[in-house]
């Protein structure tokens, strides 16, 4: 099987400051990649660049993404076009949208993707039914439907909402930016369980995390260490255990 995502020599900066300094990464459908690394290494920047945040400038390199069996220039697409093609970012800090209910937000997003692919949009009753089933995956309470997006949500609810959105949109490439941070062990289990249920041979997941504990629940195929804007080490899940035990220093000294 070919690659779903190919990142080549990616350099990116924020407000003129270079953060990514030559990232290379290939991801195939069906794979789960964990990206770990110390604070400020560029993990979140990488996720924002993949999703197309306008505040991040790509200064060199490319990101190719498979659309209709062809590798296309992902950077040429606007954020909403990327989403419609199946790229999803679970935000580290999900944004509050006051006055907009989760229901109308999720339905608008879902239908926008359907429209793009020429599949029928869902009316309110069928979407309500569809959403209920997805809500079970992350254990969301009924009243969630009418609440405003992320407004007044606890940290755990916000993170579960990200996974719910992922379940609704069924992306081909999901980037989870520190979805585990700030979660207690029960919430972590719910989130990890949700991710595992959405994992399939057709989609790929990039997990950005500080902690090995998430990887106890979601077993990655690869673990990468990002430091100073470059991937300095790649291994299997045992690398994460090693990092847990020894920290990052032994790698940085090389």
């Amino acid at each position, binding site marked *: 099987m070919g690659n779903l995502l190919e990142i080549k020599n990616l350099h990116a900066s924020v407000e003129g400051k270079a953060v990514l300094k030559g990232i290379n990464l290939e991801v195939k459908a069906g794979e789960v990649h964990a990206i770990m690394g110390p604070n400020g290494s560029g993990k979140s920047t990488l996720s924002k660049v993949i999703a197309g*945040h306008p505040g991040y400038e790509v200064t060199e390199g490319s990101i190719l993404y498979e659309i209709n069996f062809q590798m296309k220039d992902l950077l040429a697409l606007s954020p909403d076009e990327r989403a419609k093609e199946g790229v999803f970012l679970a935000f580290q800090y999900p944004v509050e949208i*006051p006055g907009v209910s989760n229901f109308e937000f999720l339905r608008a997003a879902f239908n926008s993707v359907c429209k793009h692919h020429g599949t029928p949009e869902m009316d309110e009753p069928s979407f309500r039914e569809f959403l209920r089933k997805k809500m079970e995956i992350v254990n969301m309470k009924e009243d969630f439907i009418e609440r405003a997006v992320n407004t007044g949500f606890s940290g755990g609810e916000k993170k579960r909402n990200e996974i719910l959105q992922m379940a609704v949109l069924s992306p081909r490439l999901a980037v989870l930016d520190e979805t585990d941070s700030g979660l207690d062990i029960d919430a972590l289990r719910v989130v990890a369980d949700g991710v595992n249920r959405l994992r399939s041979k057709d989609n790929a997941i990039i997990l950005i995390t500080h902690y090995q504990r998430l990887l106890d629940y979601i077993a990655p195929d690869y673990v990468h260490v990002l430091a100073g804007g470059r991937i300095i080490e790649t291994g299997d899940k045992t690398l994460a255990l090693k990092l847990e035990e020894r920290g990052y220093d032994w790698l940085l000294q090389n």
Partner: protein
Amino acid sequence: MSSDRNAAIGLDTNYKYGFVTEIETETVPRGLNEDIIRMISSKKNEPEWMLEYRLKAYRHWLTMTEPTWAHVKYDPIDFQDIIYFSAPKKKGEGPKSLEDLDPELLRTFERLGIPLAEQKRISGVAVDAVFDSVSIATTHQEELKKYGVVFCSISEAMHTHPELVKKYLGSVVPYTDNFYAALNAAVFSDGSFVYVPKGVRCPIDLSTYFRINASETGQFERTLIIADEGSFVNYLEGCTAPQRDENQLHAAVVELIALDDAEIKYSTVQNWYTGDKEGKGGIYNFVTKRGKCQGRNSKISWTQIESGSAITWKYPSCILLGDGSQGAFYSVALTHDYMQADTGTKMIHIGKNTKSTIISKGISTGYSRNTYRGLVKIMPSATGARNYSQCDSMLVGDKCTADTVPYIEVKNETAVVEHEATTSRISEDQLFYLESRGLDREAAISMLVNGFCKDVFKQLPLEFSVEAVKLIEMKLENSVG
């Protein structure tokens, strides 16, 4: 049915109202003096006391000067260059009936989405159709009569209910109130009159549709609504005008009176022509709207969606006189291109335990200016008064401005007054969040704005609220790009 109802207040997604009706009219000569006022009064066949009232107002107006404190800019208006009365020519002298109307007028209102003919009219809402200076038809009168509800043009009410008109006209907005109120009292043409008797819940919504057609003509609407003890009425108002390069003046006065335990809900969707992309033309909407909660536990609420007019100067207010009375003001004001809006409310607490709520949402785009101006005044007598105000402004783009000018005067120490205000530029983080879920920029902006206005939209009757959302979306689509 809902789309019919929405058309009844001028809610539609494109400004397809910009057309002109070719019709024979009778007008008075250009300019303003006592003879013109006598002429207007006689054309309307008014009682002598009405003419006297107009002349007093006119003489007072001459002593006044135009207000200049609002945050709006425009060239001085030449009040001698306006035609103060224009009405479609009547065929006969007989009583007003649809048969007497020029078929062109019926076609005009049909095109605006408001069929007036008996067999076609919209169910569930009675419409008073005002064309330039006169009311041409009021539907559902028979049905309303069964409940004792009076809904007709104010010109008609002067003859049929002179005691009520005499008693209440000018009782809430006296002609001495302000420059435009005085002008309106002198030259007002038509508008609606509503009386809901004791204990009656008006069985259908009442609505007035104001249409400006003639050029160089001002429209001076006058509306008077009286809700007697324990009654309830839901009133809706819509307005449109042709697209023209010159500015036209609309100076209305609306007075509401609620007696003991009565409730009036007044909703406006203002969609006058705004002028073109360069700010040429459009309506000057200089309006005085005020309600008096005269009785104990009476309630008045104003809900307005202000999305039209080149300039808006409008402060729908409540005088909370009766003990335990409640006033509310819910407003969405959207300005785009070169529009200017200075709008807000006044809540005057006089009675004990009176309550008021103000929710104002201003959205500015393009080069527009959008000001919220509000007054909350607690008089010494208003023991236990409470007010809650929330005034939020949202800026879309970086060429527009938003100002919030709240005045608070508290003269009774038991009062509780809360004021919250925010001004924000539309947030890039929110936009990116929505975009990253597959919504394009336009859809994302529109979703954010609708969320921002939610607290006001939910005050509108359901179908109107759905259409108000569409109207705002359409306006944003044309102005954000």
